[in-house]
């Protein structure tokens, strides 16, 4: 099997954000290995990726939610034939729906992420660990119950 190239990793990173912003739930979930662990940007502790996926599905992938991301330069470090690290800054604008039904608009102006990719047994690159954080406080505001834009 050939070594992982930097372009392969960058393509996977772009796919991940594309799946998230286009709300492609199953494709987004398949980007993570079942044993993957994540530090979400606002979490106090690390958690299994499957928990994060359930929460992101509920909060970010519903009809009233949205995700828009602008990615900075993606650095890639190679750690052998089957392992690579992608790290990059990002700007994120999200509208999320909480479990209580309230909607919030958040801006993450200085997001940073580390994603460790491992090739699985089928040769597909998948995330085994992710650490997201923000260098600046995240600004969040509650949105009115009904988005006025919907009536325009």
């Amino acid at each position: 099997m050939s070594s992982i190239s930097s372009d392969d990793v960058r393509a996977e990173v772009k796919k991940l954000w594309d799946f998230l912003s286009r709300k492609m739930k199953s494709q987004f979930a398949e980007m993570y290995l079942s044993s993957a662990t994540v530090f979400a940007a606002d979490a106090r502790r690390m958690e299994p990726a499957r928990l994060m996926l359930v929460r992101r599905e509920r909060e970010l992938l519903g009809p009233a939610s949205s995700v828009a991301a602008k990615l900075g330069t993606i650095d890639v470090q190679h750690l052998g034939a089957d392992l690579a690290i992608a790290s990059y800054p990002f700007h994120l604008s999200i509208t999320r729906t909480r479990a209580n039904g309230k909607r919030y608009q958040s801006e993450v102006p200085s997001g940073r992420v580390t994603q460790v990719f491992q090739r699985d047994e089928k040769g597909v690159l998948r995330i085994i660990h992710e650490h997201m954080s923000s260098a600046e406080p995240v600004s969040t505001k509650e949105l009115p119950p009904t988005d006025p834009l919907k009536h325009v």
Partner: protein
Amino acid sequence: MHWMVLNRPVGLAALNGSHVNLAWHTAPSVLSKTCWICSDRPREFNPVLSFSQNMKKISSEDVDKQVHRFWAILSGNLTGKLEEMYSPSAIVFTGKAKRSESGKLMAVRRSRQIPGPAHSSRAEVGSIDVQIVGQDVAIAAYTYNFNTQKILANGSKMQINTLLGRATQIFQRGEDGALRIVHEHLSAAAPPAMEKAGE
């Protein structure tokens, strides 16, 4: 550099001109040695077997030890060079930086801020989750609290308490057998608490 495993002793003359990692199979154990053999006539060798196959596999205990060593040095409780804990190609995200930077450069800068014996500095590391990924790479992920003093440009001292710190450190075993950080991401779930420290 040439990688080779010799299944029987050979004369060193055969290795002239190469920086080699030598491994002799002496069942049941494997002896290994790194050396530089000088010659003005470099010679070519075909690799027989990757040396890494003979290297000791990383254990969770090895990683645990390195993480605690890192915080002991950073707290000023252990003498050691922080920059030596990083691979030359290491990339890091520090607590507040918007972009990643070279691990070595950051370590040199951070070393200057390591408190002397007169200052109190304390790190508490939570349970370390270690994922061994491959023969020579491990991911350590954990939470931490770090309480330290910083001297500002005007000479006043600030006590900085990072509660809810979160760390990912990816270690790789180098050719010399040492575990080094190749990637680090430190962040906090809440901004550090800062207060003026006593003189």
